[in-house]
């Protein structure tokens, strides 16, 4: 099957600032693709170019086999980072409007808007103005607006930012649902746990350049293996352990990177002497670690 999205040496400058620098990328159909990177890395600019809100200075973008973004706009669903609703419109009417803009018929859009609102527990808000919605309900409605026309490719820019845990779960389920139906999801985030839980593929962008790109497993394995430890006690005791090259101390948990040839058994023994160990896990590094390392290396370079 042809990929859902292909970027070929795409670049974008704003004045003197290079926002996206010759990025190439292929997103297969039916995948969940995570765009990660620090603030200002070029995630949003890349996404806006895919949505043809911005146009690249050079390079080509092929979305759903089309080089003409206008032609496929109706088959894309987009949830921007900066999102909002028309405050004075009724919720169902508003959803239907977004559906109609995507080419749905009026009756079909209205019926689907109501069905979605019912399904997400917002049925009684269908005929109220959207300004009466709470923040969380507003976020739900925005996500529904992204999905109302059953887009083949769903692009979510920072979908988890500012969500409470209930809505985080909701968005996660929506993403999984879309994939289950064989459609493609791209989302950007800087919460590594979210990316780790959901993504099939990871694309790490930093200062406009692609740093890492591949399956989640490949990306994680690109980092060095480490030991994850959960413990009760003073994390200061982790410092200066023999055979440990570096420590990511997070208070209750820590990641320890071993020197080549160091024995994990010996380390465990040392740890047990110092404090109560609740978990000891030898594994590949977390995405967080990979991210920090990649960004730090870049900074040093």
């Amino acid at each position, binding site marked *: 099957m042809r990929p859902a999205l292909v970027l070929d040496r795409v670049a*974008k400058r*704003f004045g003197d600032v290079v926002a996206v620098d010759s990025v190439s990328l292929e997103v297969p159909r039916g995948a969940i693709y995570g765009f990660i990177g620090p603030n200002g890395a070029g995630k949003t600019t890349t996404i*806006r170019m895919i*949505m*043809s*809100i*911005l*146009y*690249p*200075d050079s390079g*080509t973008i092929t979305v759903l086999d089309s*080089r*003409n973004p*206008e032609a496929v*706009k*109706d088959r*894309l*669903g*987009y*949830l*921007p980072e*900066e*999102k*909002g*609703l*028309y*405050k*004075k*419109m009724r919720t169902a009417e508003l959803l239907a*409007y*977004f559906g*109609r*803009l*995507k*080419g749905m018929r009026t009756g079909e859009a209205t019926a689907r808007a109501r069905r979605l609102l019912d399904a997400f527990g917002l049925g009684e808000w269908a005929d109220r103005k959207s300004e009466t919605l709470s923040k969380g309900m507003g976020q739900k409605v*925005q996500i529904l*607006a992204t999905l109302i026309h059953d887009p083949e490719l769903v692009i979510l820019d920072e979908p988890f930012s500012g969500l409470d845990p209930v809505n985080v779960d909701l968005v996660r389920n929506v993403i999984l649902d879309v994939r289950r139906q064989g459609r493609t999801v791209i989302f950007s985030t800087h919460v590594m746990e979210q990316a780790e839980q959901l993504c099939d593929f990871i694309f790490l962008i930093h200062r406009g350049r692609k740093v890492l790109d591949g399956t989640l497993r490949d990306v994680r394995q690109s980092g060095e293996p480490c030991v994850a430890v959960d413990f009760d006690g003073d994390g200061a005791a982790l410092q200066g352990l023999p055979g440990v090259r570096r420590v990511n101390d997070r208070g209750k948990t820590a990641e320890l990177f071993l020197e080549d040839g160091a024995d994990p058994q010996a380390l465990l023994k040392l740890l047990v002497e110092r404090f109560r160990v609740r978990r000891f896990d030898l594994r590949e590094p977390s995405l967080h670690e990979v991210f920090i390392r990649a960004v730090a290396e870049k900074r040093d370079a």
Partner: protein
Amino acid sequence: MRRIFLVAQREFVQNVRTKGFWFGILFFPVMLTAFIAVPQLLERAKSVRRYAVIDESGWLLEAVNARIAANDLRRVLEVAAEAPDRRADGWEVLAPALQESSLMLAELSEEERGALAAALLGGGDGAGLSPLATRVRERYGGDIRAWWDAVSREDLRRLGSDFSFARYVQVPAPDGPDAQAELTRQVSAGELFAYFVLEADPVAGGRASRYVSNNLTDEDLRAWFGYQASSEVRERRLAQERIDPAVARWIQAPLRIEVRKVTATGEEEAIGSRDKLRQWAPVVFVYLLWISVFSVSQMLMMNTVEEKSSRVIEVLLSSVSPVELLAGKITGIAATGLTMVLSWLLVLFFGTKYLPAFFGAPADLELSALASDPLLIGSFLAYFVLGYLFFAAILAGLGSVCNTVSDAQNMMPAIMLVLFVPLLSMVPIGRDPNGALAQILSYIPPFTPFVMMNRAAGPPTMLEYVLTTLLLLVSIVVALWAGAKVFRIGILLTGKPPRLREILRWVRAPVGVVPVRKEDPR
């Protein structure tokens, strides 16, 4: 096209639902009603002025009072004369004699009715009356006089005419040497509005009579009483010089033609304003045009800002292109504005026809003719659309760079400065619709719609219409092109709004430097 239509449809439906729209729709009918009704209501609400007169001459007051009474009786005669076709209010109050003589009275001129009223009250031989008036006097005079002496003021009020006693009530002046001091006290205590002291020999005119009041702004009483007194004195002077009454009337005749407008108290303004109406009617349309163009294009600006500040803009842009969005918004709000403006025109057309009658004023044919004048209505609609397009393009561009309503409000003074020019030039252009100022301003596109509307009284030549409209159309195209260019950059901008200089740079910048769309590579 489908998306443009959808955006336009949404704009229209949403705007029509706002309070602001209904305020706009109702604004004009309320203004028009107020314009027609308030003078009438003010007239009715005017408080009664109590005054006293010290008559040192010993005869003038009595003569003036006779004139005042004759004047009021003349009004009764006029009500009777109008009655057959108008079925005046309070018809039943009138004496049977008046009801019967109605048709004959209607035949008389206003002046003849005045003379008849004086003759009915003053007795005498009625030498100066016309034959028809003489017949009325002979047949009905006694009955009318008897009715007039008996009828109460309350009954007369029901006739709805502008009787003097409804506004001015004369109270007797106290006798004795302290009379003036007493009246002065009453005036300062507010018990009396004013008092007159008529000098001993007004016919000689050596000394001034006096009018004493605390209120120096309301001169109606002084003018009204003074006029009655001067008329009387003038007649006495004629008599003293032994000028035959017929000769006197003849001498006065040319003057009376002038006076004729003035003697019908209260109507002198109506006649004056009616003459001026033709000249000044376009000014009303300029006002309406100004208000509608300004408020509707500002509506577009505020909607754009609202889409940005509510962050809905990027969701939209994933479905429509900036140009589609702009075109849809301009169209939708144009439809909103046209609905408002057309409702105004309908109100103007029907209002001027039926409203005056509703408030008991005579239907103003001139006014309703103006309300359906094709030149005025046609240019109003055309200039609304053209003016709106021009300012909409500019305000949408400016609105797109603003993030909050207060950003937009900060920009308004600069726009107001431009928009004030046609308001300030309205009166000078109304006076001289084809003067140099009018001609020059006609060729400055932001002013063209207002100034050309203003000049409709001229009207300008066809060549001027063609040239100014062409220039305006070209400017609209340029404004739309520049507005769209700014809009597609501005709507994605966050943070501090750019300076005007930067916005102009965007407009001039070639495609590619700013994030504008490139041609499809295929």
